[in-house]
């Protein structure tokens, strides 16, 4: 009983995160800003939902595979959003209109 409630709570939180990503997707006007919330949905939303499902099924083969999936997501999804951001930064000519650039390095 408690397990079901806990799992439902986790799933609810995850779905909320994903809905927030959609809202942010329509609220912000520039791709890099949209990407921020999108990346959040990829990591936090997916992980919250998967943790909820793991709590539901208990420990068996399904949940172990889900843990593998969580690890894969933590490694792969940042790489994905990094690639998208780099594509945008290289391709867009007017990127300086959208965000100010600060340099703390010394080249």
């Amino acid at each position, binding site marked *: 009983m408690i397990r079901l409630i806990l799992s439902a709570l986790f799933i609810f939180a995850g779905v909320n995160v994903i809905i927030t990503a959609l*809202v942010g997707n329509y609220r912000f006007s520039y791709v890099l800003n949209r990407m*921020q919330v999108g990346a959040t949905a990829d990591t936090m939303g997916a992980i919250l939902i998967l943790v909820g499902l793991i709590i539901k099924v208990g420990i068996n*083969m399904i949940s172990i595979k889900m843990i593998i999936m969580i690890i894969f997501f933590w490694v792969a999804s940042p790489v994905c959003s990094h690639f998208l951001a780099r594509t945008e930064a290289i391709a867009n000519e007017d990127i300086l209109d959208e965000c*100010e650039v600060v340099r703390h390095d*010394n080249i």
Partner: protein
Amino acid sequence: MYVLLLLFWIILNGKITVEIFAFGVVFAAAIFWFMCKFLDYSPKYELCVAKNIIWILTYFVVLIIEIFKSAIAVYKRVYSRKIEIQPQMVFFDVDIESEFLRFVLANSITLTPGTITVDVDGNHFCVHALDYTLAEGIEDSVFIKMLKIMEGNCCG
């Protein structure tokens, strides 16, 4: 690492029989040889991990706490109409020598909501932040300090 590969094989198969186990031993050995030969992997990294195990666990806990903290900050900006966001792109240098640790740093910066690593070129990082408050103090964040300690442990 070898044990991890074998475990991965067994988990993907879904059950343990003698046949699957025997094939798993062979394939895991083959992949382990491939990693050592072509992917610059060597067993001395495992020693490194064993030395740093406490720091790695602490790193994960700190990472999760940071993710939740900045997720709340991002959600405030998504749902309130009053706050105007000022996106910012920050270039900064990091003095971490190891390639792998720089990869870990870039990944954790991207995992934290509100900041994305746009480019890594050697030591130079380029990070895009949703708001300038989220990018404050990113050149000397907790992650960098912990990674430096790990690197020091490894080489020493």
